[in-house]
């Protein structure tokens, strides 16, 4: 019983890995940005746009040169071939500097694994190392004006022309397209078959002639996502990922791989709120001593710890060679509404002054920024409703929604786009 009893101890090998990581980080991390990074939170960047890009790329490059980038990727593709537990150890040690990875989340979490599964060996050796080292940034070109949740309803066309494909259409909400070098792109290659059956996946150079990126101003005033227009853009057939008309399955692989890159750093707003309530004075003492405040805090705290231990369970399973269960699909669903509620509550505690979002605001306006960014979190990467559908159908085995368009050829589906 003792041998494999529950424990959070490092094995001697893991302890050595941790010591090495800690020493390397201590010697190499960009310490001058530690303070602003510590204060950064959802919706509020630590550094302004251009500096952030530069600092994040420099840190990623330094990590890559020393073998600390994309730890779980094979060495040949720019990674370290590390175990899932070593990844967690790294994340624990990297601490706030991990926030500098924000630019690479989509590339490392979704595009890289898709390339690994479908690109040729030569392409993997060419494209993956600069993706791992942050020299090249990748974006994900899936959503369109008329197909977000219903992504299989997309209309961007790819038509064969010799050894090339010619792309025409429009993507939207593409995070980071304005600073991305490459993207993975899902297109329609056969409109005469049902919608899931006529899709094909590619990767492309974002500097290709005919690609036009137009930033969109978000509801919170920032501009992280874009519209991307394709006008007669040529993509060589060699950059096709998976078979022609098999793009839907390729996209599922992308999403499934996302599960394997589980992390333990989930943004919930709870540590921020806890600190805030510890310092905030109400009429009759510190907020944290107030019964009602405690109750709210406790309820969010157990959700946050529940999420943390859910991912640790998954990592533990992964490290034993088990496939992580579906538990992880709850992470974003729970965290996204929690952060929104947490922000609202922090403002409520401020009373009328909670409305201020400039330098006068409490906690330097952190909760105001969080409030304004949170609605996007509930939409991006699958809306709350889609996440609940996924849990109900794939985890609990409940019937799929009734789909009137499922077996109808795509070009006969009635449409109503927006705008």
């Amino acid at each position, binding site marked *: *019983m003792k041998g494999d009893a529950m424990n959070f101890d490092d094995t001697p090998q893991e302890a050595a890995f941790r010591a090495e990581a800690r020493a390397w980080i201590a010697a190499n991390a960009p310490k001058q940005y530690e303070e602003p990074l510590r204060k950064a939170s959802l919706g509020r960047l630590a550094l302004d746009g251009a500096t952030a890009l530069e600092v994040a790329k420099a840190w990623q490059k330094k990590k890559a040169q020393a073998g600390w980038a994309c730890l779980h990727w094979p060495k040949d593709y720019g990674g370290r071939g590390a175990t899932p537990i070593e990844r967690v150890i790294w994340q624990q040690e990297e601490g706030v500097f991990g926030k500098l990875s924000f630019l690479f989340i989509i590339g490392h979490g979704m595009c890289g694994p898709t390339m690994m599964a479908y690109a040729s060996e030569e392409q993997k050796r060419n494209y993956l190392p600069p993706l791992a080292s942050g020299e090249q940034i990748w974006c994900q070109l899936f959503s369109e004006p008329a197909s977000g949740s219903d992504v299989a309803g997309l209309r961007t066309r790819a038509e064969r022309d010799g050894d090339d494909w010619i792309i025409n259409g429009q993507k939207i909400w593409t995070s980071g397209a304005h600073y991305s070098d490459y993207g993975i792109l899902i297109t329609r290659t056969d409109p005469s078959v049902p919608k899931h059956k006529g899709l094909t996946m590619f990767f492309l150079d974002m500097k290709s002639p005919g690609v036009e990126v137009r930033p969109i101003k978000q509801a919170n005033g920032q501009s992280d996502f874009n519209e991307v227009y394709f006008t007669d853009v040529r993509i060589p057939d060699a950059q096709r990922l998976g078979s022609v008309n098999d793009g839907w399955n390729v996209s599922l692989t992308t999403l499934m791989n996302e599960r394997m890159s589980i992390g333990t750093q989930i943004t919930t707003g709870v540590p921020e709120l806890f600190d805030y309530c510890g310092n905030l004075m109400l009429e009759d003492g510190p907020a944290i001593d107030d019964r009602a405040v405690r109750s709210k805090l*406790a309820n969010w705290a157990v959700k946050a710890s529940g999420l943390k231990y859910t991912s640790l369970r998954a990592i533990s399973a992964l490290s034993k060679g088990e496939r992580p269960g579906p538990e992880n699909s709850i992470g974003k669903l729970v965290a996204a509404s929690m952060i929104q509620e947490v922000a609202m509550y922090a403002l409520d505690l401020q009373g009328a002054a909670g409305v201020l979002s400039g330098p006068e605001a409490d906690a330097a306006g952190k909760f105001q920024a969080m409030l304004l960014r949170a609605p996007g979190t509930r939409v991006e990467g699958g809306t709350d*409703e889609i996440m609940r559908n996924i849990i109900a159908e794939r985890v609990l085995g409940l019937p799929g929604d009734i789909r009137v368009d499922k077996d109808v050829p795509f070009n006969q589906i009635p449409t109503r786009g927006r705008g």
Partner: protein
Amino acid sequence: MNFDFSDEQKQLREQARRFLAEKCPPKAVREVLDGKAPYDRALWQGFAEMGFLGVAIPEQYGGAGAGQLELCVLAEEVGRALAPVPFSSTVYLAAEALLMAGSEAQKKKWLPRIASGEAIGTLALFEGRGQPSPAAIKLAASDGRLSGVKLPVPDGAIAHVAIVAARSASTGRDSDIALYLVDLSADGIEACELANLDPSRGQAEIRFNNAEAEPLGEASEGWSLVTRLLDRAAVLIGFEQVGGADRALEMGRDYALDRIAFGRPIGSFQAIKHMLADMYVAATLARSNCYYGAWALSTDAAELPEAAAAARISATQAFQHCAKNNIQVHGGMGFTWEFDCHLYYRRANALALALGSQSYWEDQLIERMRQRNAA
């Protein structure tokens, strides 16, 4: 890191699940619910024979000498089956208190009897409304004799032995409270069953009238023992709640697949799907918090107080959430005596109040998080 139960522990879970499926179907729970028996004697004897009662009791006291993780695994199954036996009072409270603070003689006398199913034990802490607190304890101890009234005492009417929290001084300090070990067959003790939300488990009033009692542990340590005992029991009851929550979720899911309305299974309506998805979310968060609690309990980690409070709050929420929505999924059928939904609803709400209710645990959690942050 290994954040899962071992294969042996999982086998124990399977074994307990099969045993309970056979010996503790809902019909058995209803025998007690309907007042035909104060608890399921045959099941209790079966627990003893399977070694469940002494799983965490060392071998020298007649137990199996396994550990707290094994106990967590059993607790989950007990909760899942709604076993109508005094397992939590006897094992998580009385036996744990004896192990924590009992003298050699006290352990020798009671632990083997607990492990063999001969003795039922409990903790007599509460005296009416309110949260666990030294100030709430009025029952007086003087010269080794107790006088006062405890209620509700879980399984108090069927218990043979109780750990009693009593007041030995009135200085206003925690050290005023001492623990006593009381043989409930002694003179001057009267126990009577009280009507309660979940009649599949008893709640009693116990009157002590100059009753004989032995001190348990250091006299001045009584309150700190109570706090530790509650923390440890919180993790174990958390597992009962997780077991119950999972079962209520399964019942709801199965019914949603089976029941047809408007020409389709009700499980194809998004309102029902999303309700069940939210139940799954609550149950999963609770399970993960309880696993952390199990780790802290089994290693006696410094993190135990915080982990226990988080497990307790999360598991209480999950079981209540799943039990109430399971009834909703079942519609009118869910509101009949005949369907088992209300058994889970009753147990969920009764367990939510055992060991102090949510506001006590919320306070404990925040206090402990604050201490950690300050350190």
